């Protein structure tokens, strides 16, 4: 690292720190946008819950006499009014109901004959009120099953007087910490690569294409600094910005989930998740993020050297950004990623970070991901220096 490289780095950092757009993206955005988004989402969730609680729905019944107690079960459900229907409506809204149980005629004799009996619950998934009705009366499906089972048992001669006293149910045994760890493993790797790319974009284009657009390039190229020193200084500044972007992004998330939610009681369950990670894992995440950040910085600097104008540079940078988002999203739903996926930059970082967060680090995966990303990052830096040394690229119009 030469003194000239450090001079370029310092200058680019000062330049960046005085650029309102970058300051907003790196420092203001995470501490303003994330709490605002969470607050808005929680408010919408609370409002929806409240609206749903107050909502009165009408549930139709066709063939209510076939299943004893069906009307009573519906009537006993809060916010639901049973409505007797003569036949299944073609459309729920035409029938004046939000959902409807359709029980076929002569259930007893059909069961006695050994025929199949099908009871339907009609609802409209594209209608909020209808889905609210579904949520409320869904437990009644269990009651119907039990009632039909009793009828079937009787038809076989069993002396069943009432529904059997058993219940098949489900119970979530995860703690908020478990849920938080799961979401952290899913979300944080994606967010980190996304934030690194977002943080690097503006500085990379400004430090490279900006020199062309502001007519400062010639002055810079005529100084004693070599092209390599200039590119390395700029890439370092982009790297520093991208890492800062990721750190402030995570800090913004931490603030949102750990401070804002506690200061605002009544937020939804999701907001009380324990999205905390220990310092050891945070350090490992940082280490794994470094090669990816170098890679993205080098790619963006190379692109900036190539672009003719800020607009063109920003367009190319946005492609890189979208590519990073796409690759980051690729880490979702990868329960057992194949080794070949660790050869793809960004995706490999996100997958490795998920392994770190879930304590399932595979050494081969780690070596592959870090090695490949570091090698490609170094290659991209060489490409960036070459482009910055190529007058046909630098001065193309």
């Amino acid at each position, binding site marked *: 690292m030469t003194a000239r490289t450090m001079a370029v780095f310092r200058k680019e950092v000062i330049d960046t720190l*005085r650029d309102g757009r970058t300051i907003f993206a790196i420092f203001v955005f995470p501490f303003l946008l994330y709490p605002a988004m969470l607050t808005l989402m929680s408010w919408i969730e609370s409002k929806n819950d409240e609206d749903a609680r107050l909502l009165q729905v009408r549930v139709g019944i066709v063939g209510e006499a076939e299943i004893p107690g069906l009307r009573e079960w519906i009537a006993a459900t809060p916010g639901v009014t049973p409505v007797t229907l003569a036949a299944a409506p073609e459309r729920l809204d035409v029938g004046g109901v939000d959902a409807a149980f359709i029980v076929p005629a002569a259930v007893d004799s059909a069961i006695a004959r050994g025929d199949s009996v099908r009871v339907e619950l009609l609802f409209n998934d594209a209608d909020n009120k209808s889905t609210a009705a579904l949520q409320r009366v869904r437990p009644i499906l269990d009651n119907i099953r039990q009632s039909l089972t009793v009828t079937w048992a009787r038809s076989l001669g069993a002396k069943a007087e009432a529904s059997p006293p058993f219940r098949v149910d489900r119970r979530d045994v995860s703690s908020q910490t478990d849920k938080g760890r799961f979401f952290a493993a899913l979300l944080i790797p994606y967010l980190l690569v996304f934030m690194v790319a977002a943080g690097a974009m503006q500085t990379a284009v400004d430090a490279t294409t900006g020199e062309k657009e502001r007519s400062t390039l010639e002055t810079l190229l005529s100084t004693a600094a070599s092209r390599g020193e200039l590119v390395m200084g700029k890439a370092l500044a982009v790297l520093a910005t991208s890492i800062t972007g990721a750190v402030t992004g995570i800090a913004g998330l931490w603030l949102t989930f750990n401070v804002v939610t506690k200061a605002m009681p009544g937020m939804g369950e999701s907001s009380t998740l324990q999205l905390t990670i220990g310092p050891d894992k945070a350090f490992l995440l940082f280490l794994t993020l470094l090669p990816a950040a170098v890679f993205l910085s080098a790619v963006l600097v190379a692109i900036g050297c190539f672009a003719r104008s800020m607009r063109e540079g920003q367009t190319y940078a946005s492609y890189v950004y979208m590519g990073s988002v796409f690759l980051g999203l690729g880490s979702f739903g990868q329960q057992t990623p194949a080794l070949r996926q660790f050869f793809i930059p960004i995706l490999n970082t996100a997958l490795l970070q998920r392994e770190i967060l879930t304590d399932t680090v595979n050494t081969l995966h780690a070596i592959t991901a870090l090695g490949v990303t570091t090698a490609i990052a170094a290659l991209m830096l060489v490409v960036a220096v070459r482009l910055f040394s190529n007058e046909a690229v630098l001065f193309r119009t």
Partner: protein
Amino acid sequence: MIQVSKLTKTFRDRKKGDVHAVRGVSFTCKPGQVFGLLGRNGAGKTTTLRMLATILVPTGGTATVAGFDIVEKSAEVRRRIGYLSGETKLYDRLTGRELLQYFGALAGMSGTNVAARIAALTDRFALAELLDVRVGKMSTGMKQRLSIARVVFHDPEVMIFDEPTAGLDVIAARGVLALIDELKRQGRTIIYSTHIMTEAERICDEVAIIERGEILAEGPVETIRNRVPSRSVEDVFVSVVTGAAGGPIDDR
């Protein structure tokens, strides 16, 4: 000293094919002299100066600046030159002091030397009012003073000026010319391109008239001037570039 021999630059263009911007240009610029490169827009002045400043690589010929080959020893050349173009700008978000510190560091100066140099140049360029102001907030005249201070900041022995008065008002342009006079008296080697003939007459010791990448006339200003009855460099320039002089002239 700048020695240029058959310097050539050809750009490859997909649509136009090969574009010969500079064709076998040769001249010598001695210390303590101002060598003027006169030409119309697009004549090849800027390309020639960019090659001398090692911003562009020649496709033919050779040149040495301060004794160093511009291709083989480009880093050594850049250490010894100050380059100022009328088209180049400064960094709006830096203050005057930060800008000088930046270019001082790029020239390899230590922090102490940079501070001492700023102090030394403060009076000459009235830097006091520029040092703590961001470039973006400066007037055109202030920016020009800072640009010139930037060029001489690392005390280069060779100065390359590419139409440095372009876009400047009369007062600012006079300031630039006065500085060049001063640098000449200090014994520096100065190459100066312009399409303003009165400027060339005023400050240049020798001139070369360049047209379509070729030098059509070259020699001391006085000798060039004597080519026409009016003793006007502008008239010589017009006659040479329009072919009235009947072909290339070498008055060395």
